[in-house]
């Protein structure tokens, strides 16, 4: 994994928690942060094999895994306590865990609405709420929420998903206000169309037409998003808070 490791990003002693870190964008984030020297705890909900693969692929790096359903507030608190008990700190939270259940509004199922909102919104809040007291006490820390271009631009068949990501944007700005007095920064990264298993169905449905709507004329790679997270986590972004950084090849401009 290539990483801008020739510069001191101020990450090498840090501890990061990345939710939903076993696949796709989350995995790329885990690998970039670990390559930058961070002690990374990735959480996963189902796929223990994929989580173990991330650890195996990152030989020599500090990557560990924890089973977690971010929808469970008490479990999120317990996980953070466990991390702090082991490492004595938590410097970075990347709220990446998220799900898509696309359907046109009129036929969307209650369960499709519930699982998207509970995972994407409640899960993000649960984890931020769990790490915040530790960061407040330490007077340092960064929270990066993975949003989506859908949160601003919307998308056909994505009413639940777009609503959840729009909520994350508002949440990001509000937490940034609350935690700024202690020097804690809170930002979001909003990916566009990225080459992951989770977005495969969306990309297949959109076909080639989607490329014509991306200014840079290519689908994004998970690592494109991971580098943006690396930047916001680094000391180079110490003066940035409450921002939504789009990583979409210009998708939202079209």
């Amino acid at each position, binding site marked *: 994994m290539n990483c801008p490791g020739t510069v001191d990003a101020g990450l090498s002693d840090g501890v990061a928690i990345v939710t939903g870190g076993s696949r796709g964008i989350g995995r790329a984030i885990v690998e970039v942060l670990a390559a930058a020297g961070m002690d990374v705890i990735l959480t996963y909900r189902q796929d223990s094999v994929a989580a173990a693969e991330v650890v195996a692929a990152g030989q020599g790096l500090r990557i560990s895994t924890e089973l977690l359903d971010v929808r469970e507030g008490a479990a999120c608190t317990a996980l953070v306590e466990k991390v702090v008990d082991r490492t004595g700190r938590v410097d970075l939270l990347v709220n990446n865990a998220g799900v898509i259940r696309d359907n046109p509004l009129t036929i969307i199922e209650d369960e499709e609405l519930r699982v998207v909102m509970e995972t994407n919104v409640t899960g993000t809040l649960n984890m931020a709420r769990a790490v915040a*007291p530790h960061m*407040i*006490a330490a007077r340092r820390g960064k929270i990066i929420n993975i949003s989506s271009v859908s949160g601003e631009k919307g998308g056909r068949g994505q009413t639940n998903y777009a609503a959840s990501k729009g909520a994350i944007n508002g949440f990001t700005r509000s937490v940034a206000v*609350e*935690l700024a*007095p*202690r020097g804690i920064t809170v930002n979001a990264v909003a990916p566009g169309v990225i080459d992951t298993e989770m977005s495969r169905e969306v990309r297949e449905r959109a076909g080639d037409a989607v490329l014509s709507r991306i200014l840079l004329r290519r689908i994004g790679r998970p690592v494109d998003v991971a580098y943006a997270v690396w930047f916001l986590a680094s000391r180079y972004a110490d003066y940035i808070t409450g921002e939504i950084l789009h990583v979409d090849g210009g998708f939202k401009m079209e």
Partner: protein
Amino acid sequence: MAVYPKIAEIIAAALPCEIERVKPDASLIDDLGAQSIDFLDIVFRIERAFKVKIPRGKIVEEARGDLSAAEFDQRGVVSEAGLQRLRAFLSEVPPERFASPLKVADIPRLFTTETFCKIVIRQQRAQSAPADPKPA
């Protein structure tokens, strides 16, 4: 663990300020410059240090006792009955600090170092007390 020295240490670390300034009757807001986020930090540190749980709003809830919410305050201003309860419950706070009218939102201005010591002691007692026997 002795309660007062640890509470003073926690408050000094959270604000931060010199520990000599953290006197028992010091108002955290008016004397030590605490902001709302500092209270979150202080309560978090106290909970970890003393292994107690301090629910949000615990002080006002306990001070209110059997007074209903409507009896305790009207439109955010503490009633005379509510003030009496507060004076009795926060007996460590010098009487002259109980301004009238007192807004509910301003109650935290009354909290002193000793207020937090009392909370910890009460919570420690509550947590170590045997649970009520279950009915047969």
